[in-house]
């Protein structure tokens, strides 16, 4: 009898440990080591786990280990460093800044420059002058987006040349286009006139000129667009254009025919932004496909253009086998003031599959009391992203439903990244408040 009780207790303890995740917790050092590996299937879960352990220990480990890693791993590590709490974040950035020229030093300088600190351009210039092994240069440029410091822009412009690969050229042109840097136009036009550029790079140069309102860009872009292999970074340059010629938009529409996923979404977004009416018929075709990104973009696009989508069509999409498509349909119906997709979202979110996070996010946008109980339940989801979205959704929802009251959800102590036990107390508080104040009408 005593032995059976012990077994029961052990089973219960094991179950408890399994649900809290305490038993399987890896050390921060081991996780950071995984971050430095080349296998992204190992690196990604390690990164996600580390996102839940932002603290002084992680800061110290990042300062110690990141300089040894390759540029791609350093780039991921920089995202973690930026997410640290103060004063760990500043201390870590300062340590990177004091290091040798590298992606880490540039990343820290760019971060602190954005935070308003002065005198950091020299670090960025030094790093760009000796970037180190590929793909460091491209990653460095990626860190400079949105920075309009004249010294930085000048050095980016000085790097323009036909020796840049398509990724590096795209990133450099994107930075210069964001800064509306006129002096770059002549250099880019010269590049375009010369030989040695493939269609992908020609298209990016031409797109830059179009953004700058330079007539030389149009014909070159029209000619190069059909032959481009990649699209998304070209989109990011073109997206900065206030106006695009109809002929260019016609080519974008043609090019979109061979795109899929997020690349197709970008193409649709560009066509919609410029109200390119011929795209509407194609969008109806994409609506019939099973590419959830395309379906979502086509739905948004058609409605933004004032095109009619029968409600029956959207309701039919709710029961699509592809959960992401049904989430998009439910979200679109909500945007049209139709809450009939709410129940479907609850099912998808609570089922916990790959669409659970987007379903929870969509659920959080419903200003509907029926969304509260499932969102409270989703605070206990096994998926940290779902938990984060549920918490965010509840915060928005409570304030909308009770606009004359003040809330501080952080005061409940809920942190999506915490272990179950700590979360459970916070959830109990939220649940209790809801029970006390929920009224049916």
């Amino acid at each position: 009898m005593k032995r059976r009780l012990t077994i029961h207790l052990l089973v219960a303890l094991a179950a408890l440990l399994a649900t809290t995740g305490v038993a399987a917790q890896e050390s921060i050092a081991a996780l950071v080591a995984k971050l430095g590996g080349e296998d992204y299937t190992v690196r990604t879960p390690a990164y996600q786990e580390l996102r839940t352990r932002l603290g002084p220990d992680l800061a110290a480990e990042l300062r110690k280990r990141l300089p040894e890693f390759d540029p791609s791993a350093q780039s991921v590590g920089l995202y973690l460093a930026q997410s640290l709490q103060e004063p760990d974040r500043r201390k870590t950035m300062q340590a990177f800044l004091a290091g040798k020229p590298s992606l880490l030093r540039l990343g820290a300088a760019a971060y602190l420059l954005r935070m308003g600190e002065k005198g950091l351009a020299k670090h960025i210039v030094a790093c760009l002058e000796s970037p180190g092994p590929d793909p460091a240069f491209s990653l460095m440029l990626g860190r400079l987006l949105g920075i309009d410091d004249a010294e930085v822009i000048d050095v980016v412009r000085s790097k323009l040349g036909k020796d840049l690969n398509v990724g590096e050229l795209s990133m450099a042109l994107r930075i210069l286009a964001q800064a509306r840097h006129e002096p770059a136009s002549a250099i880019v036009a010269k590049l375009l006139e010369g030989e040695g550029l493939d269609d992908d790079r020609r298209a990016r140069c031409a797109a830059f000129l179009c953004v700058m309102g330079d007539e030389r860009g149009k014909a070159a872009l029209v000619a190069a667009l059909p032959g481009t292999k990649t699209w998304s970074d070209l989109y990011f340059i073109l997206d900065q254009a206030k106006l695009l010629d109809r002929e260019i938009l016609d080519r974008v529409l043609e090019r979109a025919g061979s795109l899929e996923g997020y690349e197709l979404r970008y193409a649709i977004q560009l066509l919609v932004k410029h109200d390119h009416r011929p795209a509407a018929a194609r969008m109806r075709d994409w609506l019939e496909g099973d590419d959830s990104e395309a379906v979502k973009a086509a739905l948004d696009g058609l409605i933004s253009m004032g095109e009619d989508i029968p409600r029956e069509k959207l309701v039919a999409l709710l029961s699509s086998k592809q959960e992401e498509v049904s989430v998009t349909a439910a979200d679109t119906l909500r945007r049209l003031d139709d809450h009939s997709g709410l129940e479907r979202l609850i099912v998808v979110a609570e089922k916990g599959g790959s669409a659970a996070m987007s379903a929870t996010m969509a659920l959080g946008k419903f200003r509907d009391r029926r969304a509260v109980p499932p969102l409270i339940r989703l605070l206990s989801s096994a998926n940290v992203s779902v938990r984060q979205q549920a918490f965010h959704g509840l915060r928005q929802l409570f304030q909308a439903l009770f606009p004359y009251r003040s809330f501080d959800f952080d005061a409940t102590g809920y942190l999506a990244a915490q272990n179950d036990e700590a979360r459970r107390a916070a959830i109990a508080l939220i649940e209790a408040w809801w029970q006390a104040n929920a009224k049916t009408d």
Partner: protein
Amino acid sequence: MPAMNSRFLLLTVLLHASLVLPARTSAQTTESAGRYTSSAAGMGEALDAILLGRRTEGEKAGALFFLVDPTTTLKESGFAREMAAALERAVATMADRQIAVAAVGAPRAVKVFGPDDHGALVARLDELLASPVDEIKNVYKDLRAAAGLLAETSGERELVLVSLDNGDAEDDLEGTVEQLRKLKVRFSCVASEAYLSDSYWASHRNEIPSSKWEIYGGDGAFIELPWGWLFQMTVANEVAPSGTAVYPLSRLAAATEGRVHLYAPPSGTHQCQVYGTCLFCSGDHMPRNEIYWRSKVTDFGPSTASRDEVMAAAAADPAFRAMLRAWEKAYAKGLLRGSPSVAISGNGLAAQRLRNGKDSGLFSGGGFPKKRRTALQLAVDCEAIRAELEETLAGIDQLSSLPRYRAMATFTLVMLRVTKANLLSYAGWCEEIAPAQAAKSAPELLLPEIDTPNRGRRATGIGFSNFCLCHGVAPFRKVELPGGPAFRAEMDLLAQEVESFETRFAHTPYIAALHRSGIADFTFTYPATYVKPPRPLRGSKTAGDGTTPRVPTGRPSGSSGGTSGGTTGK
């Protein structure tokens, strides 16, 4: 004597009737501005319509005169580049046509370009737009001058005004109409969308730069719609795009058989409300009934008759007269801050200047019980005005009233209901929320709810913001708002009225105006807290600049784009 008086009175009535009725008929049969308006998908499409547009059969190709208003908005529209592309597309139709170009402000400094000079024409446009002049301009004087120049040419004469920022400041509109008609000049324009019965200039007359000019500003001949409702942060009609250009441009185009091409910059996305965030969405709402249909814009659009004719027609319109009576009464009670722009004068209308609004007494002085009583009394007054208007409108034969005025009167009816609901909510706030928030001690609360962050601070007054009606009234039923059963009952009635309104006036500007109105959210206001300015950083370029934003150039209510984006012309 009394008999004589009666006969005299009868004669007077008959005389007025004979003067007014034909005018009214004339105004009713005159086409709506919507008929003369196209919504261009971009500047290129607008220019295509002009360059590739109709030519009167048998008429010799004459000159096309572009009077260009060089402003920043026009420059940013890529006008010169779009003109170059449009000229390429119109090579065949422009092969025998000369194009004259001049700028607003210097109409006589005209340059003429032949079919082989299109490159030079584009260069001229670039030159004009190199230094934009963003100030309020009266374009009508220049249009008369340009028409005079066009009269020296033979063949078909077309004058095209390209102005995305002006057209509302006018000196002599009817004189311009007369001259263009006399010289057989057809007027077209590329212009921005005006706002529905825009009342901005009525309350900002000191910003009109010349005493010789008048600015009405809206899509119609005068401000026809009651505006400035109590507890509304946004004057809804000042932000509801009308689907047409400002009245003077529509008038000129209609009078000369020309066209108005509306231009809206790309990427105009929907925003539920102008100030603050929407209670019911995350800024991604897509209200389909806000997409205007050209046919409906035409049905409910403003008349393009002369201003005198429009006013005469309004004076004879039973729905307008009923609305005007309600407007005057509501204004007298302090339910509106905008006084009527016109008054019945005999059988016609006389223009009136804006009067100072009456203080409702709800925002200052007195304790909460007094404020509550005042609000409840105002709600009773509001209901009386609303009920009278409702009864009058119910008795009006639909065919005896213009669709535009029926829509406006119905909108006023809904706004009276919204105002009444807000008054009941205010009364509820004074009783249920304000005393508790003003008390010294905080109530016991369960997390995540916390006490008001302003406990202990001395309030200086009462303020409000709005929860917009963009999502309708139904979602409010799920929201905890003050006012108790009286407020909830009023909201139920409002829900019915709004539902009916949304059905009747879907795809018209009146829906946009309703959606930009809202249910009030009351709060205490507090004195600003003094914060020591940061020590200027050495070498900082922004030190001493302060944080006060620069006053934007152009007019705040300028007609370049509204919150609901351009119309589709569907």
